[in-house]
């Protein structure tokens, strides 16, 4: 038995999913966070149901890739029940999808979610009359408060046992040209899909309109289909709009039937705050404050400073490492073997120390700050604010979400870049993430590395910002493709719930740790092997001339080499060099810039290949590698010439 949750972005599908299954899907207050299909299991009367959480979808006629994922899932996976989750306040514009789902003949349960906020705003909904009018079960829930979940479970349970005997509700009849085209189209559609041909036909008509001009394969069926479309377009200029309009008219009737909004009041304070955020004069200072407090003070000072000192310096430096070193050396008296665990690059002394002592506190504080911002509804408003700037680098405001997330983990952000609409934007975002967005671990280390030299820090920040803008602007000019367009839904501002923020931070941490701990261990083993065979030293010495070319000590080579395995690893390597007093402020600035720009870590590279294809990934790496060193060289030359940061 399968249950699929569908609905527009930001209606609380993931919260409902968690309530039904007890698993944790990441829940956030910005549209488009579910990029993967989450699966979980729910127990109903002793039966186990598979519950599927899908990416947000506005209509079955799809536009973006993530929407297509959901649609294809509905069409091919044959769920036994589809739960359409809507935001009660926006019932009118969401009912269109309900009507489509009903047309598809899939068993639908309509879940009026976030009913608590609707009621708090003074909106009364008569679920029973809506149920009668639609002919499907309608349940009111509040995922956040856990209200109505038992009723929803019961409704799903009933629906899995086949449709209840209820009066057949006539399905929506479209205008004559549409109905005629549908009648002609239906026999031509392939059998065997779980949804009705009427629904498939409608989706086809709506999408074909959008993809006008695409020619069929030329066989009989596609010729016939072209004919039908031609006939239709001669009698009706935009079938897609006509269909949407009729559905909307029906949705409006239904909403009028069951809504009582006479007592609705606008939430004044939230509105005022929202406007404060989206006006540049107030929004930009607010953004700077958020960056300063969230990123610099909390992540930089507290996470990368205080917590790292505590964990890496005290816990690992004083207790764990000496203890483990002593223990291992006693158990494995052969240096070759014990080096694997406790040498300079040992699994414990390097791998675990970096992973737990340095990376963990930085990433944890970043994800905590990000989750807070996310849940408050700040990010879409930020997108609105920066859209103009992002247009110049070939992106639209929406891309600010992967970009900000990139400051946490570029690998995760590269996955999230999937939510951008065009291939061109995904490509530019991937390039900029790989090149100019330092991840939180790297950022934290660089901040603490350079904090003793404010001028070097400023040079680094300016350099990275300039490269980000210049390379963005250049790729916007050079890459072919359609210009980006910007639209985003602004969810209401909400006070983040601590439980949700913590759970989300934990979920992200889990993803991160599961992804990185193995990499750290593998890297430690690889380096151990490399040292054993002399390969590592060979590579480091091969890096020597390159290092000297950009004015760095040859020893920095190992930091760069490590940097390929994990970005933050490399920065951590610099950390050690700086502590040993081997670097001047200028060298630190140059190294920090080059290392930030330098190729992405192994994990990010793997995700780039998976998400954008190996050609794009290879192209990006082919550009980033020489470019990073070129910038490093130029910066060193300029600083030397200016006599700055000697």
């Amino acid at each position, binding site marked *: 038995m399968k249950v699929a949750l569908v609905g527009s972005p930001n209606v609380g599908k993931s919260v409902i999913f968690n309530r039904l299954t007890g698993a944790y899907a990441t829940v956030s207050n910005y549209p488009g966070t579910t990029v993967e299909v989450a699966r979980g299991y729910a127990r109903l009367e002793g039966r186990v149901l598979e519950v599927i959480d899908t990416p947000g979808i506005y209509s079955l006629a799809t536009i973006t890739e993530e929407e297509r994922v959901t649609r294809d899932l509905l069409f091919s996976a044959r769920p036994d029940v589809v739960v359409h989750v809507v935001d009660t306040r*926006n019932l009118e514009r969401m009912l269109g999808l309900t009507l489509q789902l009903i047309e598809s003949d899939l068993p639908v349960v309509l879940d009026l979610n976030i009913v608590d906020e609707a009621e708090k705003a003074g909106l009364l909904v008569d679920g029973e009359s809506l149920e009668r009018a639609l002919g499907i079960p309608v349940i009111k829930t509040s995922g956040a408060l856990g209200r109505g979940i038992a009723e929803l479970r019961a409704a799903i349970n009933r629906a899995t046992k086949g449709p209840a005997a209820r009066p057949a509700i006539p399905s929506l009849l479209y205008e004559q040209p549409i109905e005629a085209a549908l009648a002609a189209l239906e026999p031509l559609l392939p059998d065997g899909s779980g949804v009705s041909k009427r629904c498939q036909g409608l989706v086809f008509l709506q999408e074909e309109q959008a993809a006008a001009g695409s020619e069929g394969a030329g066989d009989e069926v596609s010729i016939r289909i072209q004919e039908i479309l031609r006939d239709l377009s001669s009698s009706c200029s935009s079938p897609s709009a006509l269909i949407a309009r009729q559905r909307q008219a029906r949705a409006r009737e239904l909403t009028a039937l069951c809504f009582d909004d006479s007592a609705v009041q606008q939430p004044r304070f939230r509105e005022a705050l929202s406007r404060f955020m989206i006006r540049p004069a107030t929004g930009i200072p607010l953004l700077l404050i958020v960056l300063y407090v969230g990123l610099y003070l909390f992540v930089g000072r507290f996470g990368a400073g205080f917590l790292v000192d505590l964990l890496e310096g005290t816990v690992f430096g004083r207790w764990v490492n000496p203890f483990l070193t002593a223990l291992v050396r006693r158990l494995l008296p052969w240096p070759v073997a014990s080096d694997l665990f406790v040498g300079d690059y040992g699994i414990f002394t390097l791998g675990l120390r970096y992973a737990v002592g340095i990376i963990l506190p930085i990433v944890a504080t970043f994800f905590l700050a990000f989750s807070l911002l996310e849940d408050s509804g700040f990010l879409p408003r930020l997108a609105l604010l920066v859209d103009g700037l992002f247009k110049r680098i070939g992106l639209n405001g929406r891309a600010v979400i992967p970009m900000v997330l990139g400051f946490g983990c570029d690998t995760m952000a590269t996955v999230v870049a999937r939510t951008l609409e065009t291939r061109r934007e995904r490509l530019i975002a991937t390039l900029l993430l790989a090149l100019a967005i330092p991840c939180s671990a790297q950022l934290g280390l660089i901040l603490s590395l350079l904090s003793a030299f404010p001028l070097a820090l400023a040079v680094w920040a300016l350099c990275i910002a300039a490269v980000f803008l210049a390379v963005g602007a250049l790729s916007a000019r050079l890459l072919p493709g359609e210009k980006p367009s910007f639209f985003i839904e602004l969810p209401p501002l909400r006070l983040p719930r601590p439980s949700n923020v913590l759970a989300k931070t934990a979920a992200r941490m889990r993803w991160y740790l599961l992804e990185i701990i193995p990499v750290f261990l593998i890297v430690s083993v690889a380096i151990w092997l490399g040292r054993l065979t002399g390969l590592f030293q060979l590579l480091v010495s091969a890096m020597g001339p390159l290092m000297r070319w950009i004015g760095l000590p040859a020893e920095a080579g190992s930091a760069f080499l490590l940097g390929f395995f994990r970005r933050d690893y490399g920065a951590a390597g610099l950390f050690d060099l700086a502590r040993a007093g081997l670097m001047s402020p200028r060298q630190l600035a140059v190294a920090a810039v080059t290392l930030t720009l330098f190729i992405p870590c192994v994990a990010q590279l793997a995700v780039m290949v998976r998400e954008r294809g190996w050609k794009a990934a290879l192209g990006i790496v082919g550009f980033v590698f020489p470019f990073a060193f070129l910038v490093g060289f130029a910066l060193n030359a300029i600083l030397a010439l200016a006599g700055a940061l000697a």
Partner: protein
Amino acid sequence: MNVPEILGEKLEEILERLWTRTVEKGQESCAASELGETGVEESLVELAVLGLVAEENGRYSLAERGRQEAANTVRRHRLAERLFIDVLDVKGELSEESACRLEHMLHRGIDEKICTLLGHPQVCPHGKPIPPGPCCAEARRAVERIVAPLDLLAPGRSGTIAYVHSTDPRRVAKLLAMGVLPGSRITLIGRSPSFSFQVGYSQFAVDAEIARDIHVRLDEQEQAAHAGGGLRNGRRLRHGGGPREGRARR
């Protein structure tokens, strides 16, 4: 003599020219040579017989009855232009040509229907005024009067979405799917740095390109309150016309 309901293309063209020269450009009267080429004299005689045109010393002007007739003809022409450019998205010369032909068919109330469909526009795409018809006067009393693209509104204005139009059908599909649908109530919240607006209980932000695609039928009481200043920067769909033209040029 009774004026026939349909004058025919030739006579209508002459009335139109007379209208632009005398009413709009303020000339007292026109010479026959200004009004057309061969055969224009005969047509002018015909118009004079119908009591639409007055002649004095070989110079012509519109008679009282002729003014009304000419106003209607001009109105039909400019409505046709709006229809081609705004709704059907026909560009440049083609729109002009088509408008010239269509205008002569817009009789018997068809012009009123088109005028209503377009939301009783007040200016043609080139910025010239469209003489109001009876439907416009009525509409002024009723709710529907101006349809303006969202990017021309001042923050705080609201209305009903009249239609969504774009050269990119995918974009229309997206807006429709998100619930930005004809007939929904819409309020513009802010215009800078991006356009933010409210539809129903949801808020959205879009860029100027998309805002231009959303055409809003403004509320009546708002029109009174904002008369003159309601549209942004006094750009009351005037001079070099609407936004659509601007885009075509880019």
